[in-house]
């Protein structure tokens, strides 16, 4: 379903990035990188309002010809970016939301681990497993 999933820290460096193993994975990395600007734009747009009022799910960040990029921001400014295939039209907004919710929950589980220092790369197996379940190959 998702082609690439990335977790970006507050300072805009990646904590976790994983894509479907295709020949051109770097392309996904670039897409995630460029989407960070869009994410920043969206969260600054409601900067005046209270953080509580800002919704965590940012929705479609930008579509490209082949892919769509969705974003999600946590209250601690950790961003989740997901790239999905445009041809997969069956994916609805609700499903994307639920995927982000699962990501967020798994991320919180990783945070709970006292051996994980925030800012490290995420190496949790449970997190990997969850992301794998989201990236089941449709092709």
């Amino acid at each position, binding site marked *: 379903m998702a082609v690439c999933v990335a977790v970006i820290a507050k300072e805009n460096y990646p904590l976790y990035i994983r894509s479907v193993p295709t020949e051109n994975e770097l392309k996904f990395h670039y897409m995630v990188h460029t989407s960070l600007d869009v994410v920043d734009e969206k969260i600054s747009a409601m*900067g005046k309002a209270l953080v509580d009022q800002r919704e965590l799910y940012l929705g479609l960040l930008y579509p490209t010809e082949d892919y769509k990029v969705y974003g999600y921001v946590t209250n601690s400014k950790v961003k989740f970016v997901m790239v999905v295939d445009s041809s997969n039209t069956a994916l609805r907004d609700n499903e994307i939301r639920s995927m982000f919710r699962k990501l967020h929950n798994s991320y*919180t589980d990783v945070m*709970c681990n006292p051996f994980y220092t925030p800012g490290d790369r995420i*190496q949790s*197996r449970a997190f990997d497993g969850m992301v794998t379940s989201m990236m089941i190959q449709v092709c």
Partner: protein
Amino acid sequence: MEAAASGGCGSGPPLLLSEGEQQCYSELFARCAGAAGGGPGSGPPEAARAAPGASTAASGPVADLFRASQLPAETLHQITELCGAKRVGYFGPTQFYVALKLIAAAQSGLPVRIESIKCELPLPRFMMSKTDAEIRFGNMAELHGTKVQIPYLITEKNTFKRMDDEDKQETQSPTMSPLASPPSSPPHYQRVPLSHGYSKLRKSTEQMHPAPYEARQPLVQPEGPSLGGPGAKPLRHQASLIRSFSVERELQDNNSSYPDEPWRITEEQREYYVNQFRSLQPDPSSFISGSVAKNFFTKSKLSIPELSYIWELSDADCDGALSLPEFCAAFHLIVARKNGYPLPESLPPTLQPEYLQAAFPKPKWECALFDSYSESVPANQQPRDLNRMEKLSIKDMADFPVPTQDVTGDDKQALKSATDEALPKDIKQQLIFVSATPKDSNSLKARPRSRSYSSTSIEEAMKRGEDPPTPPPRPQKTHSRASSLDLNKVFQPSVPASKSGLLPPPPALPPRPCPSQSEQASEAELHPQLNRAPSQAAESSPAKKDIPYSQPPSKPIRRKFRPENQATESQEPTTAVGGPASVATVKPHPTVQKQSSKQKKAIQTAIRKNKEANAVLARLNSELQQQLKEVHQERIALENQLEQLRPVTVL
């Protein structure tokens, strides 16, 4: 034949070793070389990492090793000759490997020939004698004190880890040579294939190698106890380090009944874990916070990724803290890992909290809450909540657990918010709170991390909870309102003006601004009401005569209120009396008077109760208003802080 054999050896027959064989042979070689050279630790691994041909194995340990293969001495002689050590006078790597292969062949029943080593053979088996145990013990003294305990924990687990014979042989032979670290240890344990698991992952446990090695020695023999006894004695000399672990040596028999359950925790192990838990956290039903557990487990010298993974496995509810069963599972996994078992993909069923709680109920513990552990997983939340509630209720004089207290760490915030949510739901009954804890555990899993609850809100909720009981004492049975309405209609055609105290139908709650005014107003109304009440009973005209009678009953009520009101009230009755008296009067009937006096009293009591209720509610309201102001102020302060912090966080 001998010449041919030795010639064959001299020319160096191509020795085809499988990867597994290569591994274990190199380790054995390094071990023999290292043992001869003394000291565990850096020496042997370096020797192993260097070209295997760089060193030689001393004959002493090699002889021991060969004897451990339990082949008859004659066979061993033959092997030694065949491999060429006798010829060259030392055991170089080639000779050693050939010898090992020949041993394997001999053990599998093949004749001891050069040809036999050309084919695929299982790894040679070595049963070490206790003398070796003692030799190894000399190294123990160098080991770090506290951590010696851990390798001994799982002696029993090592016995029958894999029931496959091949695996068993493979497991045993690598376990024989724990001193060597293989040259290429992948940093990620999860990718290590099983057969190489133990040997490859010893890097972090180099210090412990002799210890677990020694621990395993008696176990290699199926008839454990006989060897375990003498083997255990030198261990017990180190009793100061080992403490309760020496008891575990006798558990080998117990664990031989769990051939495929290396993840099962035995009683003694459990006791040890529980003692360790107690040393970190005196209350067995409470939790160990993440940081405390981290410090403790870091002492085990496992790598951080491994510890992180162990935590992931054992913290079943992902709350950042370890309950007792979770702690036992984590400890067990660490010990298993240190003894070379690769970590499982998921938590084994025997290590799951429910299983552990069910399998090891602890009646001997003084904490009565722990008995409730016999329930399912949410139960571990339950005693925790109960425990928290008990502790807190002692502190709170309102007999209400105040969650802001007794928070041992941020890890508990989730629970606190969960309890906060539970508390307002059913304030009066803590039993219902207990039944609500499964809800809490679910909500914990959903992780409501809001921390907006404060003690004041709980008190307000408390008071709100108390509010409902008080209004009911304001019964409507005497329908005072209705009576006043009727009386008002009755009186309006008469002298409304003269009754200065007369107000339009009195509201149930007199106007708020000043309770005293309201009381005064209500008092002022009292007499017209009293006056009206008898008049309602009788006709309007006879009521006027009753007013003098109404005055004595009204007087005791009057005296209840403040004395300054009496002056005004005394005036009003007089005017009231004067007013109605000027109206046409009719001779009152005695019977009517009695009825009216009874009604009067009833109405008076009702009015009194209503006024008391009014007063209480008024006070309550003012207090709540005060609290509301305080909370508002708090909120403003927090918002200010947030505003101050915001420029830092916004990118």
